[in-house]
């Protein structure tokens, strides 16, 4: 874990309102595992005050990593104003990433919107491990919003796309794409792992489908954060009853959780 002030070595809008920021910080780039995140701050005054959490979306070159983010509020608006050559405050890598283990079996990655970010990193890592090419399913509101692993990270990986408005790929939610894949896996008796990131409602549906198909499922959750270090207890989500504790810290026990650890009936409490 490092607290540093790296230089922005590239920064571009990859879809309307969505940016890819490249930060040169070898220490973080080398240590980070897919699913981990960084806390960023690019404000000079005390307002906004808190750092914002963002998944690491992949390694870029030898010594840099990427952050793929959508402008939704004041913090991300300030980020978007930073220029190449500026330095920003970075803390990371933080949290627990996806468990890829030494185990074999097939991976299905399912992302919704900018939730593809940690999955890009995961795909990059799996691709780097030889014949672990995952299936990559990604859903967006429309064609304009599409973020593909090739465009963003130059990964040699074709994504299956779903759009809500039907302007590209399958018309409907990304979970429509997941069902046939799970069916195939179930048929082949493969050990299948679904890794997902996106809005809570999507994750809940992914978790349910995976469970039904007997696949294991890991989800990357979001919540408002203050410290990112497990110290403030601000970022909790409701744990599933069998966890034995009422709440899980997204920054410490997560952000990636086994789907069955989460109380889905009360997930998403953080965001209206």
């Amino acid at each position, binding site marked *: 874990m490092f607290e540093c002030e790296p230089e922005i070595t590239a920064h571009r809008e990859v879809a309307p309102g969505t940016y890819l920021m490249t930060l040169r910080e070898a220490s973080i780039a080398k240590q980070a595992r897919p699913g981990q995140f960084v806390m960023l701050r690019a404000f000079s005054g*005390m307002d906004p005050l808190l750092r914002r959490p963002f998944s690491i979306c992949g390694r870029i070159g030898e010594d840099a990593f990427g952050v793929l983010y959508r402008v939704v509020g004041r913090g991300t608006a300030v980020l978007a104003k930073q220029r190449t050559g500026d330095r920003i405050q970075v803390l990371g890598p933080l949290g627990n990433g996806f468990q890829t283990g030494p185990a074999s079996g097939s991976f299905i990655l399912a992302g919704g919107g900018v939730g593809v970010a940690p999955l890009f990193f995961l795909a990059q890592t799996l691709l780097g491990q030889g014949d672990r090419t995952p299936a990559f399913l990604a859903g967006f509101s429309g064609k304009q919003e599409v973020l593909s692993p090739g465009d963003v990270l130059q990964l040699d990986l074709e994504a299956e796309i779903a759009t809500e408005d039907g302007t590209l790929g399958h018309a409907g939610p990304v979970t429509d794409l997941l069902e046939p894949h799970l069916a195939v896996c179930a048929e082949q008796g493969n050990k299948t792992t679904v890794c997902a990131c996106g809005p809570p409602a999507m994750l809940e549906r992914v978790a349910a489908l995976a469970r039904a198909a007997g696949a294991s499922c890991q989800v990357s959750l979001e919540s408002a954060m203050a410290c990112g270090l497990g110290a403030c207890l601000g970022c909790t989500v409701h744990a599933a009853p069998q966890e034995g504790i009422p709440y899980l810290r997204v920054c410490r026990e997560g952000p990636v959780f086994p789907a069955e650890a989460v109380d889905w009936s009360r997930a998403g409490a953080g965001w209206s």
Partner: protein
Amino acid sequence: MNEMDPDLTVRVGPLRLKNPVLAASGTFGYGREFEPLFDPALLGGIVVKGLSLEPRAGNPPPRIVETPCGMLNAIGLANIGVKRFLEEKLPWLQRLDTTVVVNIYGHSVEEYGEVAGALRGVEGIDALEVNISCPNVKQGGMAFCTDPMMSARVTETVLERSDKPVIVKLSPNVTDIREPALAVEKAGAHALSLINTITGMVVDVEARRPALANVKGGLSGPAIRPVAVRMVYEVVEAVRIPVIGVGGIATAKDALEFLITGARAVEVGTAGFADPLATLKILDGLSGFCRSRGIDRVEDLIGTLETDRRF
């Protein structure tokens, strides 16, 4: 230590701190969370998350929301309880070469006493900080602070059951902070710390709901600093026991505001979220300030505020 380095040690009643900068309760976990970033023993002390007799789950999420130059929290004093604290957290704290303060909390006067009693004789705990001021729990909490009589009773009970220096932490949500301060002093407290958070609320206008599940939360961060400085000013004028300043401290200049006003040490909370190295930077800045002005001991700065009018 370089010969030229100013002496940063401060006395806070019976306590002798290696420097005047402590990590505030609830913002530094049990100390270990920040270890990957820096050695917590560099601090003057650490105040651990509020501890109650039994474990507490805390409030449902959302528990935090950012506000202008601050944040609201309604953690609800989530903590692992005395038993697990002693088993799981204390051993590491005992090896830590700095002052360890345990922030305690009870639902009733009696429970405060029980927590204090459970920590009696325990090595590696240098002082108790008694939180009579948390606004995020229904029972007790702030009620103990808004009623000076109750403040005094909690203080007496803790003092009876404890063998450690007792710091009582006051709430700013009162008409006159001198009242609980004086009551607690009279009850025998060794020191006071102030302020805890100011009760606030944020509305999510899209959802037309409170942003926090608990509806209200405690406001902390730079936004509240002027209120904290004012209250420290009022209290140091009124009491003789030492005061620790808390509230919105983010830079050495901020810490100096409190020390000059008369606080003998400071606690840093929310600023550590915006910058996890804030405490160390404050320490550096304090040394630098003293050095550049030829001040040998930071204690020489404490309470040097002049308030007579010049013009």
